[in-house]
């Protein structure tokens, strides 16, 4: 009996290489003859560029070139890159729009010379009016970040947007389901609350790094720590107006990505520098520079919610404003694809959502673990508790009463299926021992607990292509363009392919993405890889299985429908077995050849109606992530200790339970940092807490004493049919509920409501003091 590979808690296959320091990272790559680039950055939040004087920089010993937009535009076909809107120049020209924007790049024989040169580039500017706050940027008379907005180059569903002028609003997403305003007017209770989240940063251990070089026939190769090599290839082909087969993008293991390393970052610049200089060019930015490369959106969300006397949510009007910074990056997609989930995991008859993506003069904001769900869940799950407590209903009971269950329509009009909202809530109730009273702490401490549940739709549509290749000796290699940035996709893929081919996952090799040889994948993002690439791999592996069965049957002299695959061999009904190597020997006459299987997966999708956002099929699958928190609040100081954090998530099938658990805990810990301490602080557009000295991410001592993840393996026949062994992505689900669960627990402990992250001791203390002065302890 073949051992099952799907469901094994297999240690990740690259673990030993990582622990022993032998794993391949682009950060460790040097190319012979390379120049080192250091970026000269804007110190103005918004200004007209007047002059860039490179004389002093060029005089530095070892400095070879100072590249400005002048040189870049001479070798590129278009002036801007960007996945949603082509709005970002490779190097600034005409204007700079945020502090930290690349203005020039000094290339030198060694990084120190480049850094010295970069200090000596003199940039003359004329200041322009700037705007930083997402709400202020929406005002009629707000300074304009861009004079003119161009529509999308890369995404079909964003192409339809009209070119715009005279606004900072990059994208206005609207959803209308029923008549929310009318229902609000008739509701027994109406709640209105505004919630805010600050900008924050991914802080991956490996900052951005890329090397560009020009090879035979002008092929541009970029080695980059990127999460989506295929889309970088597409974008570079557009930038240089060359066919995609003249662009090669490759990557290796990533030292974390979390969404930051998606879409063009350093790649256009290193490629342009390589084309200009005809030498390999390497740029490795510092941790500090990571802070001005890509951030998580700051948001302001107002929810107006109507509730009936018996505690049913009847209507919800959501207004979400996303601060996307000076360049849109993938912000419009965040506003759109997460915007439509802003009413939460509830069954609400009347929903209205306005979700707008707004330019400001701050560093660009884009994808980050959760893709906006942690921001909207902060609002809706905080308000859910506000409502429940105001009506005197247990918060978990109130959620249960209003939960969106399978078979019921989501606000987008898509009927839910295969989505374990009820099971996740039930798991929280059980694992938190919610029905048992909480043991109270001794003064001056107060203990409290809270829960929260978030819902995310996987980004749809998108495509994954995979190849599975069986060699002459029977060994198996997987070719695909998923980047393993620490989520253990390579291990999971080996398990899936091994399951189909009845071999051991340890015996499968999964290649790093290299667009010269690995086929297209949209990217490693939004918890899509396991599902999408998993489906493509399953198909590809099944194709190889079919070829093995045919070749094996022929070698055994029996009919193909009488043989089976077991334990890495083709077996005949009479008990004769041919291991794969012998099948290949029979098929090719020697140890030679390949059996190649191909898989292509694009899930079904129905484009939503413009204006109302209604669609019968808005997402390939939904993720459900719940969190339960127990906290102790020091009532003298507002200091909060998270004693316990529990994550419950719908994972479909846990392909690797060990990895699923660590993914959920890791995501929860990351979001706990966003909850408690992480906030990019700007003063007049200048980031004042750049770098890990001033911006604090959690360490091991910040991990709650009790951190646990439980998962729901809910099996729905319809979904299992469409998913690889019924699996869902799990990289983000651990983030959804953390922030509101902690805030709800703080409220349970001391009766104050925090509406703005991070939930700092001073904010809690101020809220307690205001409450003592007769303020709101709702």
């Amino acid at each position, binding site marked *: 009996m073949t051992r099952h590979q799907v469901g094994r808690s297999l240690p990740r296959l690259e673990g030993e290489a990582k622990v022993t320091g032998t794993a391949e990272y682009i950060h460790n790559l040097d190319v012979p003859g390379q120049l080192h680039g250091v970026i000269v950055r804007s110190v103005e939040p918004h200004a007209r560029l007047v002059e860039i004087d490179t004389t002093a920089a060029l005089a530095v010993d070892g400095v070879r070139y100072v590249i400005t937009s002048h040189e870049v535009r001479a070798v590129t076909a278009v002036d801007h890159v960007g996945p949603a809107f082509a709005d970002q120049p490779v190097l600034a020209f005409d204007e700079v729009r945020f502090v930290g924007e690349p203005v020039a790049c000094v290339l030198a024989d060694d990084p120190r010379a480049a850094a010295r040169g970069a200090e000596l580039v003199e940039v003359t500017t004329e200041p322009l009016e700037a705007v930083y706050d997402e709400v202020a940027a929406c005002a009629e008379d707000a300074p304009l970040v861009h004079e003119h907005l161009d529509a999308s180059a890369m995404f079909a569903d964003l192409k339809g947007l009209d070119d715009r002028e005279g606004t900072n609003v990059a994208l206005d997403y609207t959803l209308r389901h029923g008549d929310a305003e009318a229902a609000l007017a008739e509701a027994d209770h109406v709640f209105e609350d505004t919630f805010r989240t600050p900008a924050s940063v991914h802080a991956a251990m490996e900052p951005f790094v890329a090397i560009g070089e020009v090879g035979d026939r002008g092929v541009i190769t970029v080695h980059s720590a990127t999460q989506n090599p295929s889309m970088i290839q597409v974008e570079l082909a557009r930038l240089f107006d060359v066919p995609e087969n003249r662009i090669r993008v490759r990557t290796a293991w990533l030292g974390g990505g979390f969404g930051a390393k998606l879409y063009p970052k350093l790649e256009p610049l290193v490629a342009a520098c390589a084309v200009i200089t005809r030498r390999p060019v390497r740029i490795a930015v510092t941790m500090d520079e990571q802070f001005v490369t890509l951030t998580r959106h700051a948001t302001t969300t107002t929810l107006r919610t109507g509730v009936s006397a018996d505690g049913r949510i009847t209507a919800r009007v959501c207004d979400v404003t996303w601060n996307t910074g000076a360049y849109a990056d993938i912000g419009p997609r965040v506003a759109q694809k997460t915007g439509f989930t802003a009413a939460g995991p509830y069954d609400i008859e009347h929903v209205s959502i306005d979700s707008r993506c707004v330019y400001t003069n701050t560093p660009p904001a884009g994808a980050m673990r959760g893709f906006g769900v942690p921001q909207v869940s902060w609002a809706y799950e905080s308000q859910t508790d506000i409502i429940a407590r105001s009506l005197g209903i247990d918060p978990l009971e109130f959620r249960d009463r209003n939960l969106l269950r399978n078979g019921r329509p989501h606000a987008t009009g898509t009927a839910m299926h295969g989505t374990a909202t009820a099971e996740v809530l039930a798991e929280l109730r059980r694992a938190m021992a919610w029905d048992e009273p909480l043991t109270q702490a001794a003064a001056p401490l107060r203990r409290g607990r809270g829960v929260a549940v978030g819902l995310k739709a996987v980004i749809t549509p998108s495509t994954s292509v995979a190849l599975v290749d069986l060699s002459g000796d029977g060994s198996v290699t997987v070719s695909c363009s998923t980047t393993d940035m620490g989520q253990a996709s390579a291990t999971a893929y080996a398990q899936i392919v091994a399951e189909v081919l009845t071999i051991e996952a340890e015996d499968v090799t999964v290649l790093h993405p290299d667009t010269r040889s690995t086929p297209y994948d949209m990217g490693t993002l939004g918890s899509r890889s396991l599902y999408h690439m998993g489906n493509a791999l399953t198909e590809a592996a099944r194709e190889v299985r079919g070829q093995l069965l045919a070749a094996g049957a022929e070698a055994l002299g029996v009919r193909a429908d009488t043989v089976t695959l077991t334990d890495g061999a083709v077996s005949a009904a009479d008990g004769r077995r041919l291991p794969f190597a012998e099948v290949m020997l029979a098929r090719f006459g020697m140890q030679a050849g390949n059996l190649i299987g191909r898989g292509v997966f694009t899930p079904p999708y129905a484009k939503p109606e413009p204006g109302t956002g209604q669609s019968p099929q808005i997402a390939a699958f939904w993720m459900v992530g719940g969190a339960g928190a127990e906290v102790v609040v020091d009532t003298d100081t507002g200091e909060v*200790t998270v004693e316990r954090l529990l994550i419950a998530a719908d994972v479909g099938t846990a392909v690797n339970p060990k990895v699923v658990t660590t993914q959920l805990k890791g995501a929860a810990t990351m979001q706990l940092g966003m909850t408690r301490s992480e906030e990019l602080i700007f003063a007049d557009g200048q980031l004042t807490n750049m770098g890990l000295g001033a911006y604090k991410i959690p360490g091991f*001592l910040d991990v709650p004493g009790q951190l646990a993840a439980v998962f729901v393996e809910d099996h729905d026949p319809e979904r299992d049919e469409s998913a690889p062994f019924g699996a869902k992505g799990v990289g983000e689900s651990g983030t959804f509920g953390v922030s509101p669960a902690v805030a709800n627990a703080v409220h349970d402990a001391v009766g104050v409501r925090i509406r703005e992250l991070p939930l700092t001791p001073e904010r809690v203390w101020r809220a307690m003091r205001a409450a003592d002065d007769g303020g709101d302890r709702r």
Partner: protein
Amino acid sequence: MSFTITEPSTVTDAVRLIAADDETRIVAGGTGLTLLLRYGLLAPTRLVSLRNLPSLAGVAGTGDGGLRIGAATTLSALEHSDDVAARAPALRQALRRLGNVRVRNVAQLGGAVAHGHPQMDLPPVLVAGEARIEVTGPAGTRQIPAGELFLGYYDTAIGDDELVTAVHLPPHHGVYRKVTLRTAEDWPALGVAVTTDPGDSRDGPPATAGVRIAVGAIGDRPFRLTDLEDALADTPPTPAGIAEAVTTAVADLEIHDGVDASAEYRRHLVAVHVRRALQTVLLDGADPDHGDPDHGEPDHGEPDDSDVAGPDVAGPDGGPR
């Protein structure tokens, strides 16, 4: 940045090297200096490393029951010293939450004294403990009282041509309370050290007279709350008496907004934590290593006495961050 590194093998040579010019800096553990170098705040032409001066390391008991600690003693060695635990409990308490274990394994006491950054844990302990800092320069060796050593931001009374060679710390009973507002391993947003002479508590709680209180990380240098010390001398050792004296004393402090807290909140934190520290020392009996009776401090996952980190973390292959 370009500099030479010299590793003298005698204190005399070291002093001669640092006295030679203004562009020379001393590097001990390097945990503070490397940050300054990285951000271009210092551009020395020569670093004098103390790594070949093992004679500068070590903890020794002194006749008065106190300690003489060599400047090159690592913070980790101090943290695990039985002598420190027995004779200077507030110091040990501060060490256990200072920076993180990687920092403590290389950072040295002399550097921690001479660095002069206001947001450090040891300065208030040394001030409250009435430590004397032994420095050696071309003119010989002198001792600077800790209370006179810290002058301001990166500014100390140590001469440019002087090297910290030892710290003399009288024995004390007492506590150190560290407050961080962002993460457990953050720099202190507030450090409170309260000490008394061991003799004062031989037969029960110490007298309120003789208690020494220093706060750090709240201004540009650590300082004694002398008004409060004086007031306590005439205050009955009761919770209410202590609280009232603290409230009065803290109201007069000059406190400014900080990066992680407003002036108003910082003042409040000083009041709460000074009161709690005093209650621990004066009412509960200070013995921090055997169950801190003060339940007020949130547990930031601080290791227990077994020195084994407690949290059930993500697991051996938890995702990198």
